[in-house]
């Protein structure tokens, strides 16, 4: 094996020192399932879908720095099985009704679940009571679909320099996106539809008003190609 490579499911993957396993894998066209990771932002490491086994130990591939000679298991039945369970946990944690969701076909959660062959939510739904925020003239927030990936937090902080969204609270019943205004309403912030954060949501929380279903279902991003293809080319 050459100096700067590691083994991913038996295949040698080259890397540049400082790259994470996820970054190197993507560069080599290899898909490691993920939800909270996005190439533009610092890895968050919270969804745990990208969990791989590095030399036999479970680790998040989005935060692990690539190192020469490491043997990594990725798409094994054991790991994909855990990923399906994680997806199911996310589906029952929130209120996800794909058929009526504007994001259907463009939703990474839905696409990943299809790709990994998740056939049912399996667990009993929690049906949390999560409010919708329609206070902003151009944007609707539907927190029923939030998977707490923090991408909007990062985009608003790092790209937009606005800190409109902050992750706060504790545990499944408390953790949530907190809006940066005393009323807690998006309409009372300086958020704009042109912000990077307005288009970063991998699921259907942050939606632009008045553009619903512009692209018909069936012709959307993940209708054209599965997550495993789209996510290594984006």
């Amino acid at each position, binding site marked *: 094996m050459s100096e700067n490579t590691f083994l991913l499911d038996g295949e040698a993957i080259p890397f540049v020192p400082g790259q994470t396993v996820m970054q190197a894998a993507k560069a080599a066209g290899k898909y490691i399932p993920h939800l909270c990771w996005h190439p533009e932002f610092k890895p968050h490491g919270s969804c745990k879908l990208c969990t791989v086994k590095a030399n036999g130990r479970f680790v998040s591939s989005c935060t692990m720095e690539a190192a020469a000679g490491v043997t990594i298991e990725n798409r094994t039945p054991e790991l994909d099985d855990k990923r399906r369970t994680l997806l199911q946990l996310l589906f029952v944690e929130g209120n996800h009704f794909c058929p009526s969701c504007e994001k259907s076909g463009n939703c990474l959660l839905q696409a990943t679940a299809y790709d990994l062959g998740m056939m049912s939510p399996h667990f009993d739904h929690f049906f949390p009571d999560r409010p919708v925020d329609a206070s902003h003239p151009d944007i609707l927030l539907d927190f029923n679909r939030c998977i707490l990936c923090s991408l909007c937090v990062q985009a608003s902080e790092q790209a937009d320099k606005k800190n409109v969204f902050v992750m706060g609270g*504790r545990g499944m019943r408390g953790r*949530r996106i907190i809006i940066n205004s005393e009323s807690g309403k998006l309409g009372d912030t300086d958020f704009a539809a042109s912000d990077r954060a307005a288009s970063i949501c991998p699921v259907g929380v942050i939606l632009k008003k008045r553009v619903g279903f512009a692209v018909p279902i069936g012709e959307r991003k993940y209708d054209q190609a599965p997550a495993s293809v789209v996510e290594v080319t984006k």
Partner: protein
Amino acid sequence: MPDAPEKTIAAVLARHKGDGTRLMQILREVQEELGWLAPETITEIARGIGWPRARVEGTAAFYSFFHTRPRGKYCVLWSDNITDRMLGNRDLMLALCKKLWLEPARLSEDGLVSVNTTSCTGMCDQGPAVLVNYRAITRMTPERVDQMAELIRNQVPLDEWPADWFRVEDNIRRKDALLDHGLVPGEALAAAMEKGSKAFLDEVKASGLRGRGGAGFTTGMKWEICRDAPGSAHYVVCNADEGEPGTFKDRVLLTSYADLVFEGMTLAGYAVGAQKGLLYLRGEYRYMKDALEAVLARRRGEKLLGSRILDKDFTFDIEIHFGAGAYICGEESALIESLEGKPGRPRIRPPFPVTRGYLDQPTTVNNVETLAASCLVARHGGAWYAKLGTAKSAGTKLMSVSGDVERPGIYEYPYGVTVAQILADAGARDTQAVQVSGPSGVCVAAEEFGRRICFEDIPTAGAFMVFDESRDMFEVARNFAHFFAHESCGFCTPCRVGTQVVARLMDKLAENHGSPYDIDEMFKMHRLMQGASHCGLGNSACNPLFDTLNKFRPAYERRLKSLEYEPAFDLDAALSQARQMTRRDDAGAHLSNED
């Protein structure tokens, strides 16, 4: 007449120089003055420290002891560890609610009082315990409940409540090298400074001293890595979060051995080259503040803290920070986040705190007991200390013994003591099991009582909860499952949702609706959370289930409704709201079950 809220907030902000890293202290002090953290209060604080408002709210919303909704003039929280339950806390809480015409967790109509539960408050040897406006009260009884209801109804200020209620006992039952240290303040420090910092560090390495928080990292090595790590400043943090249910040894050390703890922190500062030490004390121990500050002041006067300690070229001082009800802050990187004013979320590691910790500088985080023990090493040398205990576990260990024993309290033993010995000394009878090291530790059954407390066998932070034959080990595990669901920080998916799924499965079993399928589900969640969680909380959250399922399976099996699948949905239970609204509970308001 109290000052206007803006004045109060301004005064607190001025006291902390508008420093956002001190947000935890700012929020606590403002809340102590104003009762709760109103939206405009949070806006004002955010402006004062120059943070985005949402970030301040994010921290306030994370900690159980911060209130972003009105909490009432009296906030009564019942410690809900399994040991409190065994002492009847549930009945007492319901009795108090009844007397106050109140439902648990609801603020009374007149905004006077709320009654709820909280995670273990560290008074397991003198429970049932409560916190009233975050002041600890021990040994609750039905009589005290009656009196408390009267005091609240008559709006008697807390300072005028019976002083005896607030008495917290040490209950030290067995002393060994640490609790019988015989040192005078400054003696250990003088001995170390006589040797020089490098030579002292070598002594600590030679002593084999390991962390007492449970993980057992070698203290000397930790200090050496921290000392060698580059940084503009180094820090010593004493982890006094002591959130593991069933543990209360740090409370006793800080009550009666505070000099030893502070001297240990100073020694650590001397060894790693730090000038500042931070004691992170759990919010439940707020009542200790004045006594601890007094000890610090005295030590400054004795030249054991401050600049030119013992007239030598060494500067070090200690500050006390309070937590606010979050078990996760016992994890060292979450603790550091909290010290910086943020929600207690474990960091991605590496880097580890020893190289990048508090304010991104090299930081050694040590347990209260570890730091206290380092005084013995300083005074008597590494070789002397290494002779105590076992080969890989040098020294002694404080055990917090509670539950079904005649003499609950603190027992100090050299490492290597057997579970059976501790049980005998504490006066335990007909013991069924011992939960060592709290919910995240191990459940030891009777045939294993020959096992030893040491890193070679059962490592522990010191919790030792005893259950006799009359106890239902399923209920023990169910209490722990709810504890983890309550304390999960919510950062990673497996722990955030997994702990809730497990708690719900345990409730399903408790209601006699379970099947073997549900038990398999719990094993599945155990495997997922153990591998994929972000930190130790998620990794170990299913340990008690796993242990009790393996060792006390009949406690589970007699609850199973059938050997086939059973749905979680219970049609009759679904009608409970309708029954409450119509105030009916007669046979006609229930569905009859065919079986």
